[in-house]
């Protein structure tokens, strides 16, 4: 398999066994993979545990776009980023953990920025329900205690 592979291509294998053929320049946008390649401890096939095919495909799409568009206008890339990260909470969560685990800085930046945008206009109550999966009982009690303990005027 590896003999038929073009030079400077790597195979990434997701946690559920699917394989992706990716140019090395794209793959090394992940610092974790870069280190493996540099230490020459990787064969052409690099396992990417903890990341399933669905998410891995997204990460690769992001890295490819960023690799290609180095010369492109920064604003184009920004639009791409904001569209790319505009996903449901669960996919977003998986992407963030994947980006963190594989150490893909650009993706992590874009994702964290997106989550920050999502939550910045929300009420405390909303955040508790939507992001922290708080249950009704906790909300009632925590509301009471927390509002007493740490609410301060802030301008």
């Amino acid at each position, binding site marked *: 398999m590896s003999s038929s592979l073009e030079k400077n291509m790597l195979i990434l294998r997701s946690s559920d066994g699917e394989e992706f053929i990716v140019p090395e320049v794209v793959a090394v946008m992940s610092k974790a993979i870069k280190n493996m390649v540099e230490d020459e401890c990787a064969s052409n096939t690099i396992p990417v545990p903890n990341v399933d095919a669905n998410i891995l495909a997204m990460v690769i799409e992001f890295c490819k776009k960023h690799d290609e568009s180095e010369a492109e206008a920064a604003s184009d890339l920004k639009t791409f980023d904001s569209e790319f990260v505009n996903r449901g*909470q*669960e996919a977003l*969560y998986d992407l*963030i*953990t994947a980006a*963190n685990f594989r150490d893909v800085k650009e993706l*992590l930046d874009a994702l*964290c*920025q997106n*989550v*920050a945008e999502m*939550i*910045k*206009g*929300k009420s*405390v109550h909303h*955040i*508790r*329900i*939507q*992001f*922290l*999966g*708080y*249950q*009704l009982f906790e*909300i009632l009690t*925590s509301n009471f205690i*927390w*509002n007493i303990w*740490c*609410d*301060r*005027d*802030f*301008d």
Partner: protein
Amino acid sequence: MAFNCCCDWSSKLPDELTVEILCRLPEKPLIQFKSVSKAWYLLISDVCVPRISSSAPLSGFLFRLIPLLPFSDFLMEYVPSDCPRTLRDRGRFVESYSKLLPFQPTGRDVLDCCNGLLLILHRSSVPPSSVPSQYYVCNPATKQCVAIPVNPNHLDPICAVLAFNPVESPPNNTNNNNYKIVRLASSASTASVTHPPELDVFSSVTGKWVNHPVPLQPESELYGFKWLFKSVYLDGVLFMLSYSRYLLCFDLNADNLNPRAVKLPNKGKALGVGFIGMSKDCFYYSNHVENAILVWSLDHDHQWILKHSICIDDLVRFHHGRILDRYRLSLLLVPCALHPTSEVIFIAIPRMIFSYNLKTNQFNVFYMLQEYRNLIDDGCFFFPYSRCLVVLNDFTQVKMDC
């Protein structure tokens, strides 16, 4: 429904990622979200706020003015760094911290400003006073002001300095503010070998004043001289200048303050005692020596390294010649501030503040003062200000709890 929500981010997402997200929030939601959960409260106040505050951009400068009208007191003026020539925020900043205090502070009362916190002294109205000086620490960004417990020995209103760095948090303490106030207990000008100068240091962690004798070497060149009450706080060390041309270093984390005196660089004939400042975590000393403004940095072995030399004749020739020419030989022509994050120094003469870019050698008027005001002349009370969101300990409440 809340019950079948599948996205319990708080328990799944590692803290480092939650911090990454929270740090990208604007100030207001960030502070509001402290009440989301205990985990978020701790992450925001212990990690996010110090991180954001330590990298906060320069907001502006706060400085002391002498009004030229008779019978009026010193004033403070604030100039935002992004648009110094507009009148927009000018009075507002001074008004905003004045409102926090139980009295109306004048320009003489603002003693120091360090990484977003202000140190203010309430002078007793009846001299010679029998009431000890009351110090206040203010955070204009969070609109908080705390009264510092008084020390009964502090009968004369002497200057003090503030040492604060938002990223230094005390171990085992959920309150992330850790500042110190340093003031002279007995002055170096009356010090002798048997009675070395003493510093009183207040720590916000303990809430107490502690007296430290600070014997300095060589005594003959240090005792009998005043100190300039302008300080720089960097990596736990407080730097001050002595008029005998020494740099004084006190390690505020050491029990005995580990006092040291380093001779100032002496190249040619310096005019005044000079200026100390900090930029990008590096300490600088600057002075007007003969025909140039020289800037040195201090390395770890206490050796001075000459970094920049600005020729005053060039400034006079190319820029604002008539105004600057008067100050060609004046000890006023030294920096009054360094830009905390870029290579720009600020030079103030009584009616004007200039900025000088050390990389491009560009020299510009940064700000011009109003007709009837004058900058106080030793550059001592000229502070860079950047917003800091830390919440201060309230010492009166601590007392009540005990």
